[in-house]
């Protein structure tokens, strides 16, 4: 990955990280009511874990951005329900619904999109400042 040199590096990394987070939310929501024949096969919600990347090794300047460290599966059992007529039911008549909490995902989506917007807003503001600085003395 390239170094963090200016506001554009900071914001673009931040936006990529939020985008990954939004993608995990999209995957989770798309799989929210999916059904499987066993707990192991059932879809598990995924979450992005962020970490800070500093512009300098000694972290002196305070300039940093964010990267996605890893994407983890949430350790939560699938919802087990008794539906013997279901085509995916196991031999005891149970089906396993994906362990996705839709409310939680929606909150996550709102937060991620707000933070994405914050980054955009920041760049817009500072770009305006840079333009005015370029035109200084005219």
């Amino acid at each position, binding site marked *: 990955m390239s170094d963090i040199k*200016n*506001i554009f590096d*900071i*914001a673009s*990394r*931040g936006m990529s990280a*939020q985008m990954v*987070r939004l993608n995990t939310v999209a995957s989770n929501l798309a799989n929210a009511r999916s059904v499987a024949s066993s707990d192991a096969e059932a879809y598990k919600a995924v979450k992005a*874990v*962020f*970490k*800070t990347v500093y512009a300098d090794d000694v972290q*002196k*300047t*305070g*300039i*940093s*951005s*964010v990267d996605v460290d890893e994407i983890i599966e949430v350790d939560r059992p699938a919802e087990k329900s008794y539906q013997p007529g279901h085509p995916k039911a196991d031999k005891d008549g149970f089906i396993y619904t994906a362990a996705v909490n839709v409310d939680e995902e929606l909150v996550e989506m709102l*937060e*991620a999109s707000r*933070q994405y917007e*914050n*980054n955009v807003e*920041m760049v817009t*503001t*500072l770009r305006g*400042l840079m333009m*005015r*600085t370029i035109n*200084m*003395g005219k």
Partner: protein
Amino acid sequence: MKSIENHIQAHADALNLRAKRNEILASNIANSATPNFKARDIDFSKALQARMDVGPVSVSNDRHFKVYTGTGDEGAQFRQSVNASQDGNTVELHVEQMQFSENVMRYQTSLEFLNRKFSGLMSAIKGE
């Protein structure tokens, strides 16, 4: 040339520091969801003082070099959060946004001062 430099020096330093502070605040905003991230900021008045300080080495002649005694990094410090968060992150978005907009406003003020100084110089040069 020296006098022109002296004429605008303070505002130029202020502008530089404001730009740097903007980057630090931008870093904080970008990291508002990172676990264990600690918000940073610089003490503007102290940093500006360090930039303008000539330090213990006195300058008695125009041809002497001024010795810059600042640490160079302007000492980014850690912010104390008002409401602690569960994941150890000390960024509070409202605080950062307010600081950011204040800093942007002050940057524009410095810029405006510089512009005025330049137009003052221009009219002095033209003598109109």
